[in-house]
């Protein structure tokens, strides 16, 4: 606990506590529709935070995180459908698989000096391999998709992740809070400092004695491993998996919009970005429904406009200037 509290000013701790209290109380106040929106927001906050470990901390741009979401979802769903293995055990299988997949991509890139945009392209390529592979893999129903059995349950089954939105909400809230704490600890650890050094200037980091290959590998593997939970959660929340959807580049992009808008490399950025983006998009949707306007793709256009505004006006994201205003720091660390 002492280590967790270190580096948090009383003000940020109070803010964090208040936010968490509001989120814990939320299901008692809001209706099921809003609760579902909150679940999606927290899912994006979690996935964005996981991606942020690689890009925000260690400076390695992944545009193919869908591969970890998809792999983890397929591993857990297949185990559940075929063998009746619950999602938590499925997650235990998915974590090493995703970490190994990250290790393969990282090894190929870092050993052969693939960096910057070329690294980003490599991550897209691997996600595309996976998409095409799963699209043709009969064992997991190929392009027809994998479905989890949906039944009416008398009560929530946390062990099998079957139940009502309130249960899913608390699961993703707990996971997001845990990941936040993990990232806070990572950022203040020796490895966290080495990541920042690599992000800032890799050659200078090496000259300072940092084995950059090793620490970049750790970043990719840890990011992939924690992303796997988001993949499993997604599979059990939506109950269906189609390779065309779960491995598509748009999945990879949508999880990075939150941190980009909130602030890459910050702890609050991914959370704030998810709230801003998903919150506003849902508000837009409801407003359009209420007005009887039917414009497919309006959300995507809206995302585009948000991104443009932030990139042009707040290149560091929304969080750093907001943090300064709230008096809780806001440096890029």
């Amino acid at each position: 606990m002492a280590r967790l509290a270190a580096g948090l000013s009383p003000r940020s701790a109070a803010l964090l506590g208040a936010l968490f209290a509001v989120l814990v109380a939320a299901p008692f106040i809001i209706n099921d529709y809003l609760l579902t929106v909150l679940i999606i927001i927290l899912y994006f906050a979690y996935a964005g935070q996981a991606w942020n470990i690689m890009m925000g901390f260690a400076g390695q741009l992944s545009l193919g995180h869908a591969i970890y979401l998809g792999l983890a979802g397929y591993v857990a769903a297949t185990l559940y459908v075929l063998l009746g293995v619950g999602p938590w055990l499925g997650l235990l299988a998915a974590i090493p698989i995703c970490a190994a997949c990250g290790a393969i991509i990282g090894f190929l890139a870092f050993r052969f000096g693939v960096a910057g945009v070329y690294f980003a392209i490599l991550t897209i390529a691997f996600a595309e391999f996976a998409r095409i592979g799963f699209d043709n893999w009969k064992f997991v129903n190929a392009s027809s998709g994998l479905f989890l059995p949906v039944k009416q349950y008398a009560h929530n089954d946390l062990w099998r992740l079957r139940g009502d939105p309130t249960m899913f909400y608390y699961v993703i809230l707990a996971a997001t809070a845990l990941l936040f704490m993990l990232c806070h600890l990572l950022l203040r650890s020796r490895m966290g400092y080495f990541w920042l050094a690599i992000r800032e200037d890799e050659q200078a980091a090496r000259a300072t004695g940092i084995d950059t290959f090793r620490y970049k590998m750790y970043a990719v593997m840890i990011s992939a491993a924690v992303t796997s939970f988001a993949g499993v959660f997604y599979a059990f929340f939506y109950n269906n998996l189609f390779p065309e959807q779960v491995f598509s580049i748009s999945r990879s992009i949508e999880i990075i919009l939150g941190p980009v808008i909130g602030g890459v490399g910050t702890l609050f950025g991914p959370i704030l970005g998810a709230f801003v983006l998903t919150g506003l998009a849902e508000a837009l949707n409801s407003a359009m429904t209420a007005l009887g306007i039917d414009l497919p793709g309006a959300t995507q256009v809206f995302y585009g406009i948000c991104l443009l505004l932030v990139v042009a006006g707040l290149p560091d994201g929304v969080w750093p200037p907001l943090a300064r205003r709230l008096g809780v720091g806001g440096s890029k660390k």
Partner: protein
Amino acid sequence: MTALLAVAAVSKRFRGLVAVDQVSFAVPPGAIFAVIGPNGAGKTTLFNMIAGAMAPDDGAISFAGEAIEGLPADAVCRRGIARTFQIVRPFPALSVEDNVTIGALQRHHEVEAARTQARSVLHRLDLFDKRHRIAATLTLPDRKRLEVARALATEPRLLLLDETMAGLRPTETDRMVEVLRALNRDDGLTILLIEHVMRAVMALASHVLVLDHGVVIASGAPEAVVRDPAVVQSYLGAEAV
């Protein structure tokens, strides 16, 4: 006394160009050793080979009796050779203290211990009061000092300084000379520097090596080297004497 750093017949070629040609020298422990020479003489290439940024084509480099040629830069640093860059490259978005703490984390595994070490280094380089500033916002002299601080925080036995004085005003140069002298005198730190600022070279160095077109043209005590006709002709110019 055996040399701390021994460079033996080291060469580096870029395509057809021989940047460093069969250069040999030895730096005894506790020395301040300067490498001077005109632009393009191969000084930085020589430095890069010692620091592990590039491998020599031929020759051997040993540090404290162990061969280090061809080792990667991070391994060289962990063995006790720290460097600064000719064009400064601090970690721009991080604070001054975090920059130096990252250096100190090479020898300290606990972040708090590293931070304590970083603070004492910052004191020595007059950067303590600026420790919360973001590195990118510092002036050039401060950034140069920050690079030296980050290198020192790795607790090296040999410090490689690539034109640390370039772009500094004379008073700032004198201050840096003072700091380096104190490090050499009090901590026994061995220093190898590339320098154009002769004022600093003459004030600091116990030994000077002159490179021209990748070849050693003179080597010896500073007073003798600056009177060497070959050095005057190729580098200093007649008016400098």
